[in-house]
């Protein structure tokens, strides 16, 4: 007579899952002054907006999970979003075996453990995909926010460069700036 027995197998998985996304593009700065002076103006403006200078001359601002790095000389900008999470996943399963037919207890336990491991791997993968989607969403949001800010930065850099250029050409007698339209009128006495 066969006797049934029940086995409970428990398996756990601790892993740090990550999702990241980044774009790299260039911002165009008009060459009103020599490139190194334009780069200096751009860097100054970015530092005023919360960017920190790195050892390699780039400036970075980290906002939550998103980092924005600008290389002032080339105008190359990298926006990177990273999400990481430690996940602890657990799964358990009960199976019934019989002592006279089928696999022995050890083999059965091993098979179930293997199945649970695969299941946990799939769950971890899903978590990773979730974080990936989150990172991409954060990046898209950051780009939306960054666009108008960069527009203002470029505008400010261009205005400052024009003032410097005008000062090099002669004596500035009058500067009129319209904040609404962005118009800038500089009168220079040469």
């Amino acid at each position, binding site marked *: 007579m066969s006797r049934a027995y029940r086995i409970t197998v428990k398996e756990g998985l601790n892993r740090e899952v990550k999702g990241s*996304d980044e774009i790299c593009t*260039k911002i165009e700065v008009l060459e009103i002054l020599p490139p190194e002076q334009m780069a200096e103006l751009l860097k100054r403006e970015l530092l005023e907006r919360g960017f920190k200078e790195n050892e390699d001359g780039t400036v970075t601002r980290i906002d939550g999970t998103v980092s924005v790095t600008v290389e002032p000389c080339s105008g190359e900008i990298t926006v990177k979003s990273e999400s990481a999470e430690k996940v602890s996943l657990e799964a358990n399963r009960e199976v019934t075996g019989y002592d006279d037919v089928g696999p022995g207890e050890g083999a059965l336990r091993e098979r179930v453990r293997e199945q649970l491991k695969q299941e946990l791997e799939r769950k971890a993968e899903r978590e990773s995909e979730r974080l990936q989607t989150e990172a991409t969403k954060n990046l898209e949001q950051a780009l939306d926010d960054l666009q108008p800010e*960069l527009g203002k930065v470029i505008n400010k850099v261009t205005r400052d460069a024009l003032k410097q250029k005008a000062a090099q050409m002669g004596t500035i007698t009058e500067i009129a700036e319209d904040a609404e339209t962005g118009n800038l009128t500089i009168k220079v006495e040469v």
Partner: protein
Amino acid sequence: MEAELATERISVIDADEPVMLVPEPPGPRVVSRFEFNLLRILKFILGQFPAEQATGLIQTRHAPAPHCLSRNCVQLVKDHLSKGLVQYLVRSGGWRRDRFLNGQKPVEGRVWERLPLQIRQLTFSRHPLTFLIWLTAERPTDPKETWELSPGELTAGDELFFAMALDAIRSPMPDVFQVFSGKPAFRQNPLCWLFSPADFARAEQPEPPVLAGYFKGTRATILECLQPVLHQRWVRAERSKGQIADWRTLRQYGEAESITLARFLAEAGLIGRTDLARFILKTAATILGNAELTPAFWTGGLQGSGPPRLADRLEAQRAALALPRHIETLQNWDRRARTVRHFDDEYASSQLWLAEWEAAKGDELAARARRVIDLLEPLRT
């Protein structure tokens, strides 16, 4: 003039064998059934036999190849290769009264007026014939015996022949095409890449062969003749990108095209044969002729939201715009040409490029290309 050319350019199967004009025997030449099929396949490759009939011939396994071909058959293969390929080159563009550089000097005329005979002669190795024998005897998709060769052994004539073979089977026999495009005779053949880089778009980074050989000698002559064909092919390829629905495919196509353009233009600039890049300038003029062009022209066919990462989506879209990206190189040539003084060696060649650039309204094209690229970029200010 074509007949005269064909006579001038009698091609040989063995480069060491002296050229002999054999008088035609009376009546048709007698060949075996196998040889008859081989000749029909050759005529298909040369565009002189219908694809529907050739498909059956190529996709059927015939009797094993004979130990040797009859003299009649070999003579007919020679005749077809010498006349067929020359005719193809002449019809493609060799007949045009055009201007190309010859020793840094622009020379005008038809190809046989511009260039001396020795650099318009096509020679063939034994490879086209061994390929034809294999193709006639075997079913390429399921061969009993494989056919491989080292691309370094190919002559300019061989490369043209293999490029035409790949081209001929692309549409009517896609499964055979897949087999061929993986073989070194095609994958390492610069002409195949110039005809259609997308044929070699793969998951891994595409690696075109060295293109430097196509800027001198007979290969440069071939390229001169093929300018209109290449222009036509590249325009078609650019237009077809807008029909590609799969993000990955578009990215792979774009990457293959981009690396081919980059290598080709780099070599052309280095060797000073900017005139051979005329088909790229003309392609740009045709595609970017529309002032209202947007990136959707290249990416409009993409379906679904694409890869989950924004970086991958952007890369696919950027890759699709390979042509506009490389206009910058042509513009750099223009800038460089403007600095060449009339007593410099490259003056005449620079003037030729300047004339072509201006005729194509190059500055306008470059501005449009930049605008299209900018439209795609995030954070444009």
